């Protein structure tokens, strides 16, 4: 019973403040999609709209054929996992897991059997009679996961489920979540501010900013081919160099930076290059060399990264970060050039 989740032109407000602006999102049946962004970007609002704890100003939310938009939250049939676990403190672990089944009118014997089976799957059989307060954070989140899964919901939603756990446990738990989600083939919406978490767990990731989805794609695409400056910066392209084309000759394009440095770029590598564009590069995508064809810079602070030296590079238009080889130590104040490594750079449309 796998279904898709479709959000269609959703706009939402808190009072008079708009928090989501014409947001559309389609999650395919069985897919896990993450909403990734910093706090206040609207990712949690989106989840709460789907859960039914908030109502959109306009737009529709559809789960399969069912229109959820105006349905009462308790009739939506969605499994939810919260950041702070939200276990019922007054119920045992088993009763926590069986809670949803009880609401569905299942008899005591069947409830217990299914709750036990679910606890078995998350490896907590021996904890069934304990109270939540007697569990560790990781165990609590497993119980929360079991509680959400046992009702076999067509949609699972996770609201920063690993943020309260320590680093090691976080990695274990996300593998566990992925395993259970895959095994059940449950369509899932996962909210997080942690890029590594989102990229490692998701089929696709939506990077959000100011109530809008900036880009929705597979993690590999987001990481290597961001579609705009916001996403580029978000995934670590720290250097955004504004450029304009001065000459075209076959596949080769000649472009200048704002401070007049000239670069030759091949459209075979980058695809079609518009007249005005932004060259985006991570520090490892800008090689620092003593001489060559590149952007002339004055070296600033040097830091040792283990695999390379990283230099702050000053130009008339601003500072960039570039990496230099371990074999050639350059001193601050020296003149050098930044040479873009084509495979590690990408071309973005100009913001202006």
């Amino acid at each position, binding site marked *: 019973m796998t279904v898709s989740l479709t959000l269609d032109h959703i706009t939402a407000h808190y009072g008079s403040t708009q928090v989501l602006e014409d947001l559309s999102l389609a999650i395919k049946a069985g897919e896990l999609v993450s909403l990734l962004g910093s706090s206040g970007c609207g990712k949690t609002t989106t989840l709460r709209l789907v859960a039914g*704890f908030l109502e959109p100003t306009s737009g529709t939310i559809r789960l399969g054929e069912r229109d959820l938009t105006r349905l009462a939250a*308790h009739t939506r049939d969605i499994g939810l996992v919260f950041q702070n676990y*939200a276990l*019922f*403190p*007054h119920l045992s672990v088993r009763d926590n897991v069986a809670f949803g089944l009880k609401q569905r009118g299942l008899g005591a014997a069947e409830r217990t059997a299914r709750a036990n089976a679910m606890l078995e799957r998350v490896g907590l059989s021996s904890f069934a009679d304990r109270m939540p307060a007697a569990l560790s954070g990781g165990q609590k989140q497993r119980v*929360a996961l079991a509680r959400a899964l046992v009702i076999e919901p067509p949609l699972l939603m996770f609201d920063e489920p690993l943020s309260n756990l320590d680093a090691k446990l976080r990695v274990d738990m996300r593998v566990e979540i992925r395993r259970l989600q895959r095994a059940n083939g449950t369509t899932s919406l996962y909210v997080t501010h942690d890029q590594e978490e989102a990229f490692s767990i998701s089929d696709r990731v939506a990077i959000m900013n100011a109530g809008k989805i900036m880009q929705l794609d597979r993690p590999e695409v987001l990481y290597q081919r961001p579609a705009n400056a916001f996403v580029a910066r978000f995934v670590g392209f720290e250097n955004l160099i504004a450029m304009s084309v001065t000459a075209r000759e076959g596949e080769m394009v000649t472009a200048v930076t704002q401070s007049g440095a000239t670069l030759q770029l091949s459209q075979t590598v980058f695809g079609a290059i518009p007249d005005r564009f932004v060259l985006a590069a991570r520090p490892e995508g800008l090689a620092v060399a003593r001489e060559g064809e590149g952007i002339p810079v004055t070296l600033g602070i040097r830091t040792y990264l283990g695999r390379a030296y990283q230099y702050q590079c000053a130009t008339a238009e601003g500072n960039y970060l570039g990496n230099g080889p371990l074999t050639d130590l350059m001193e601050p104040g020296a003149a050098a050039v930044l040479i873009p490594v084509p495979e590690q750079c990408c071309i973005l449309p100009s913001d202006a």
Partner: protein
Amino acid sequence: MRTTLHPALIVIASIIFIILIAPLFIILGAAVSDTNYLTFPPQGFTMRWFTNIFEISAFRTTAITSLQIAFFGTFLALLIGIPAAYALNRFRIRLPSWLSNVFVLPILVPEIVLGFSLMKSVTINLGLPVFATLMLGHALLVLPYAVRVVGASLASFDFSIEEAAISLGCPPLKTFLTVVLPNISAGVIAAFILAFITSINDVSISLFLTGPGISTLPIQILAHMEQFFDPTIASVSVLLMLLTVGVMAIVEATLGLTFLTK
């Protein structure tokens, strides 16, 4: 490391402590005094003032009335106070900040004024029976305790627990009753006890609202003192104190007294 206390601090603290505790001993002493008038220190020793309480039927009937008023008044206050405290906490961001203070007003308004206005509005204008009026008055008197103490309990309640229950298919009202309420029960019990004791001990409001044939214990004590001024009053007070201490001991043993102050 040892902190040394300033001698003046010890003196001041001792004086305050004595002022706090002395009346209890004076009442206890006066209650066993073998004299026909209230006096301290006691002269002689007798328990006859305690037995005297039970021979005066007015003490018995007013005690029963007091318990009934305290019980139903507190119940009514909780019936209003729990949902109010819930709403004030749940929708804190959306509600104006002065709203929660409205529920403290009965504490701020002098009780005499409260009693008088209740008499004017409820007894005279509405013509409600005395018992109902007393119950309403006491409910109003103890409402601030209900809202505040239950509110303190709700302030530390994680409302995502409620959302979890709803997402699992539990309707909102049922969620409140089966998930929220069991988790704030300690606060509800504490609120009940505080409100109950406040109601039992109230004079000012009852003074205005008692009527023909119906009175509360504190009012009866007052009346008895005006008429007789004998140690019976002290012995009733001792019993009232024992009741309060007993209730507090139960609270301390079950919830801890810090519960009432947090």
